[in-house]
């Protein structure tokens, strides 16, 4: 057992961190509604982050679940708008799991064909044929993948689909209708493939939440060190220090659970991987709300302004929490898995 970042993983973190800094959101001026979500796509292709976790035989980066999570965390920490979760991880991952052919995949890995996933209207799982769905992290994407009635993967064209005015202004959500007769790109996903895909999705969302928490706490701590009231930095007051300390505990416990889930996504059997991922997603979803709210409190009035980035972090956490189920949805699934019944 070695629960630490290996040197090769640290190199990846360093690369991701540099990219995240380059792609950081540093002002709200360029974000919607004034601007557009920057697609920041080419850098993801150039660093090999699109399809990072796909096997070498299909041209992927042969990275682990942990690798993918570490990249997601860095990008979220700097509130990057690069659509890594949807178009770097989940879209390509579902395409391969669903039996997507070599040409389509080659185009995806080359960055020419951009594919994400469509979630159902509750955002708790993949969209199904014959219903309305929401294409996730869809800025610049060509297609979104959903499931047909038998559980096979189908592709929905995103051209001319309307964009939602989503809470998360760092990512684009598009309204899609999955046709009832959409053509499957391969055979139905088996229960193991489905569970493993969901485990990966929950793990990278947990990683995104950890990144959001990290960025939020860093910003809040930096602010209270400098902000002076009563002639002293407000960060010297215990009332403020204790908020920060509790947020730090929540962040560190989230980080460990997220690492475990990302590791388990590759290493444990599908049911255990899914349980580990539910644990991490539940813990991180609950912790993230507390941590971003703590950040708002520590920043004070400026956190309630559009100009300050605080609300952007809150917004991103809100979308992450709900996608593939918030903590309450996970608790119900965990209770069924561990206690039986429903």
């Amino acid at each position, binding site marked *: 057992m070695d629960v630490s970042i290996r040197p090769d993983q640290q190199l990846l973190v360093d690369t991701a961190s540099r990219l995240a800094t380059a792609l950081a959101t540093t002002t709200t001026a360029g974000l919607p509604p004034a601007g557009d979500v920057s697609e920041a796509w080419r850098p993801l292709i150039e660093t090999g982050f699109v399809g990072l976790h796909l096997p070498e035989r299909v041209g992927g980066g042969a990275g682990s679940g942990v690798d993918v999570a570490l990249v997601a965390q860095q990008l979220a920490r700097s509130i990057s708008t690069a659509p890594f979760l949807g178009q770097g991880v989940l879209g390509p991952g579902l395409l391969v799991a669903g039996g997507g052919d070599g040409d389509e995949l080659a185009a995806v890995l080359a960055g020419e064909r951009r594919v994400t996933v469509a979630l159902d209207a509750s955002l708790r799982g993949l969209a199904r044929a014959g219903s309305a769905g929401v294409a996730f992290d869809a800025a610049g994407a060509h297609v979104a993948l959903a499931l047909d009635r038998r559980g096979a993967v189908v592709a929905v064209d995103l051209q001319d689909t309307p964009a939602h005015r989503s809470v998360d202004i760092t990512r684009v959500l598009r309204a899609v209708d999955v046709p009832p007769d959409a053509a499957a790109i391969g055979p139905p996903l088996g229960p193991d493939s489905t569970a493993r895909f969901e485990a990966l999705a929950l793990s990278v969302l947990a990683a995104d939440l950890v990144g959001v928490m990290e960025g939020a706490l860093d910003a809040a701590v930096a602010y209270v060190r400098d902000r002076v009231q009563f002639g002293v*930095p407000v960060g010297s007051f215990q009332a403020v220090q204790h908020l*920060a300390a509790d947020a730090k*505990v929540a962040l560190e416990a989230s980080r460990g659970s997220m690492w475990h889930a990302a*590791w388990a996504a590759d290493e444990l059997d599908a049911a255990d991987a899914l349980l580990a991922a539910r644990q991490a997603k539940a813990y991180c979803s609950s912790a993230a709300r507390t941590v971003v709210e703590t950040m708002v409190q520590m920043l004070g009035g400026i956190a309630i302004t559009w100009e300050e980035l605080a609300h952007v972090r809150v917004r991103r956490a809100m979308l992450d929490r709900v996608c593939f189920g918030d*903590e309450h949805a996970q608790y119900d699934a*965990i209770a069924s898995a561990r*206690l039986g019944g429903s």
Partner: protein
Amino acid sequence: MDFRDSPDEAEFRARLRAWILENAPASLPVEEGARVRALNEWHRALYIAGLTALTFPVEYGGRGLPSVYDAILNDEIGAAGAPPPPAMAHLTNAIRLFGTEEQKQQHLPGMLSCEVHWCQGFSEPNAGSDLAGIRTRGALVDTSAGPAYRIDGQKIWTSEAVWASWCMLLLRTEHDAPAHKGLSMLLLPMDTPGVDCREIVTAYGTREFAEVFFDGALVPAANLLGAPGQGWAIAMQLLGYERGPADVGWVARLARTLTVLEEDVRSGRVTAGPVERRALAEAWVALRALQIHIQRTMSGRADGSTPGPEGSIDKLLVTEVEQLIGHVNLDLRGAAPIIQDGDDIAAYFWSRAQSIFGGTRQIQRNIVAQRVLGLPRG
């Protein structure tokens, strides 16, 4: 990063699991004397089976295994619902890190084998969170047997003092030095004349606390642990271990409460609707977060490093999880533990004590804010 057991760890875990199944008492007696004896027999059995002091150096009677073995021990004991392992790493490591060779040879074997019981004399009526404010004095005097400290003062909240034969005593010996610099650590036999131990009954009816009074008790100066004036540094190191949830068996204790509750729900002894099932899942999620966090902490000590201020994160986390489990356990059990006072109420009160002893939750937050996050002292 690899959460999977190495082949050695897996073999150890399998043997441990089988051994616990065979040897762990199903429950502990209710009557306190019998309970203390049964717990001690359990600890002795763990020692004889080579299952205590796993990560302690071989030359002092430990097994010399990597730190993660303590996490494995806690996980398996907790998962089996067995009583917690002995809480001693804080004291044994203090002697290992600061004792003379003679002190190590004299004391460590008895501590590790759970035959010689120790207590820790830190808190005083006027020195709780403000530990540097302690007033128990040791005056260096000459006696016919050589130099000795004459000790006057009072300790309080001294856990296990009534059953202990030795005390690791923090006292003021350097009377001209500033508060933190004037403290020393002394190894004191509890049967020293002038030492008076009076039990304090806990809120849940046990006698594990005591007040200890010192009235001219003489202890050889050779019993000093470390150098005169080094007491604060030793105390901080010791508290680092005491705050480590896997170092002193806390995580096994609270995992046990949840394991038993889940089993009672599965078997139908405790009924659970959707709200209760969700609460139980939330408690499990929190427990897993703690267990994984501890695996990470223990991996971080693979290079032989000792606990730093980050240990306060662990203490805050274990406190939060224990108090959550304390609530969920009582919520789900409903009237039964209220009608018949017993272990569940004791576990609940213990969970409330968790945010007080070993440095209150507020002190831990100060440490995290100031020494981990680097916020300025007020």
